[in-house]
């Protein structure tokens, strides 16, 4: 099976969908001539031309609005945000227009857009460029939000997102772009709304999304090797819709759960998960639900401090041992 990087997997998904459906277009700052700020769209302009791969001005509100309007008439835009932090200047378009149009039009109009880009910290780019807004976006009915953690999931979820007839927002991660993994070159989909057990275990469940999955898998290895604990790691993959059943089944099996997220704690994704687990699995819990979030401060600029702010394996191991006490 071919080994691709996360970046190449995203590109393969876009290329395959561009080939499959002439209505798909890629839009964003630097996506065409510069080959992408993070080289995700490298080569696409050459292959598909300037009518399909479109450089936009630095105006998120403008070009996202343009894409939303075009999508209501049949175009399927895949819009890149250089950082998901920049979505805040286009928030009205992203949440109000895209998210509500199907409901407010009584089902007459839909908005099959994809917005994609890095939603992560850990790269020393400061408080205004390191947001992970999946929780805030997922708070709005009408929107779908996905977070691939591996190259396989990146390609599968991107294709599913492009084919979806409603707004799907894909949270990528610049630190994961170089990660390599097995990615079939077939036309496969990872369905939106389905979580994945990335590691089976019996003593503790760790639920995570995005890069926190990779961090949790490392912590799980440390927990097994140094503490003899068998850890199950559940990768949410989709934030909205959320695959509750996979999470709950795991909690029913292990009776102890630790939630790990790069979100800041207040109203992060794990706040919602925590409620769900205690509401539906109360009698299965042998310990309070543990949680590791990013430290509650604007994203730190000092590199050594930022590395500690984001969940890292030692912090996850420490929290896991507390849940197992």
């Amino acid at each position: 099976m071919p080994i691709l990087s996360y970046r190449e997997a995203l590109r393969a998904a876009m290329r395959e969908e561009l080939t499959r459906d002439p209505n798909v277009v890629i839009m964003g700052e630097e996506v065409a001539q510069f080959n992408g700020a993070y080289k995700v769209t490298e080569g696409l302009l050459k292959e598909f031309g300037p009518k399909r791969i479109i450089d936009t001005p630095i105006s998120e509100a403008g070009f996202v609005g343009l894409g939303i309007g075009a999508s209501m008439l049949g175009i399927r835009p895949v819009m890149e945000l250089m950082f998901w932090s920049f979505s805040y200047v286009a928030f009205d378009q992203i949440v109000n227009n895209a998210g509500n149009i199907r409901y407010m039009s009584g089902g007459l109009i839909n908005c099959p857009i994809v917005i994609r880009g890095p939603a992560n910290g850990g790269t020393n780019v400061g408080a205004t460029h390191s947001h992970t807004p999946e929780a805030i976006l997922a708070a709005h009915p009408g929107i779908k939000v996905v977070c691939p953690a591996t190259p396989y999931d990146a390609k599968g979820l991107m294709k599913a997102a492009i084919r979806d007839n409603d707004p799907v927002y894909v949270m990528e991660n610049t630190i994961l772009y170089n990660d390599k993994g097995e990615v079939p070159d077939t036309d496969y989909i990872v369905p939106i709304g389905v979580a994945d057990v990335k590691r089976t275990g019996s003593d503790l469940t760790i639920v995570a999304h995005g890069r926190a999955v990779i961090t949790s898998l490392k912590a799980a290895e440390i927990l097994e090797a140094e503490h003899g604990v068998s850890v199950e790691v559940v990768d949410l993959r989709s934030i909205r819709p959320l695959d509750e059943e996979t999470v709950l089944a795991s909690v029913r099996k292990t009776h102890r759960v630790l939630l790990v997220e790069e979100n800041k704690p207040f109203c992060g994704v794990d706040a919602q998960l925590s409620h769900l687990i205690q509401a539906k699995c109360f009698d299965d819990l042998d310990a309070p639900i543990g949680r590791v979030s990013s430290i509650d401060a604007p994203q730190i600029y000092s590199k050594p401090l930022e590395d500690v702010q984001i969940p890292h394996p030692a912090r996850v191991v420490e929290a896991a041992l507390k849940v197992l006490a």
Partner: protein
Amino acid sequence: MADIIDMPKLSDTMTVGTLVKWNVKEGDTLAFGDILCEVETDKATMEVQNTIPGVVLKIYAAAGAQLPVGAPICAVGKKGESAPDPTAKKAPAAKAEPAKAAKTAAVPAIPESTGISCAPQALPASGDRVAASPYAKRMAAKAGVNVAALSGTGPGGRVVANDVLAAASSSAAPAGPVNVAVAPPADGKGIQADADVAVSSMRQTIARRLLESKVTVPHFYLETEVDAAPLLALRETLNKRLAEAAGKDAKDALKLSVNDFILKASAEALRRVPAVNASWAGTSIRTHGAVHLAFGVALEDGLVTPVVRDAQAKSLREVALDAKALIAKARAKKLTPAEMSGSTFTVTNLGMYGVTGFFGIINVPNAAILSVGATVQKPVVDAQGRIVVGQRMVIGLSGDHRVVDGANGAQFLQALKQMLEEPALMML
């Protein structure tokens, strides 16, 4: 004073850069904005502009070198000044990768600033509320155990599932430290000291796991008798040939044990009945592609179960070598927890102690455990109906009835028996 120019961070994901080409040489005079060199990053090749007017005193990095961000590349200063030592670290200039420090240093105490904490608080000592986890309460209700009478081993004295399990297994209610004091020997000359021997945390974990296995896994038991003569004959032949092949190093030659054959035969039997190589996962059964075999090694401290990984892909010789290495490590107390976990099936053998047959406790999350007894000489009936001397070995299978049913378990034992009685089949 001269300045050292470092490899700049040209993009937010850059960690190393290749210095493709120098645009200046030692002795050149530089103005602000002059191009120093070209650096190739993970994304593109960029020009590095000079920000310190002066004379290039020394170039530290050769063209073509790949350097981490922050590494010194050249020194700029006044004409005639001596170039500084690039390895001398100035406090602000040091940009070593701090992530490693964060990993190896102790985890800093992180204040839970949102006030949401699951740090254990001391639970009220008395009062009518019992601190027990919801799962423990549910188990207690099912087992008919009074949660209030238990002393909890969870944080803050919380009663947790293990406490209920421990209580349910003994007829008296209290869990935790159990009162087992009995009268000392009347004549003062006991068989051993009347003492409280502290239990290591490993033994406590093993005890907890065994109890959980016995209480939560529905065990069922099958046994069969194997004609061990062909196996023992093959073993003798192979060991003889191994010694001959080693020549003068005969005493260091690999000696195959009966256990080695049983491990390899188990892997092959699992290949034929793979349903037994699985684990109960609550709402599903997780089938495993690899066969990782745990086997018991008795130490004076207790029993450990090292794991031979990927037995399905190893030859008999490789399985034997692995087993020997693991046994040596076990005796030297050098087994890592990783080497003792992750099994899919367990083999336990008490034959060397003369036990003719027994049944083990399943090593969760395996679905079964194979128990091997001693080979005994006994009268047996041969194919012609005569009574002759046979070498017989009883093997037992304890199965998790949620994963393995009687038929599967029986088929597995049948396949294993065939493997052991016709060991040539292991070559297929």
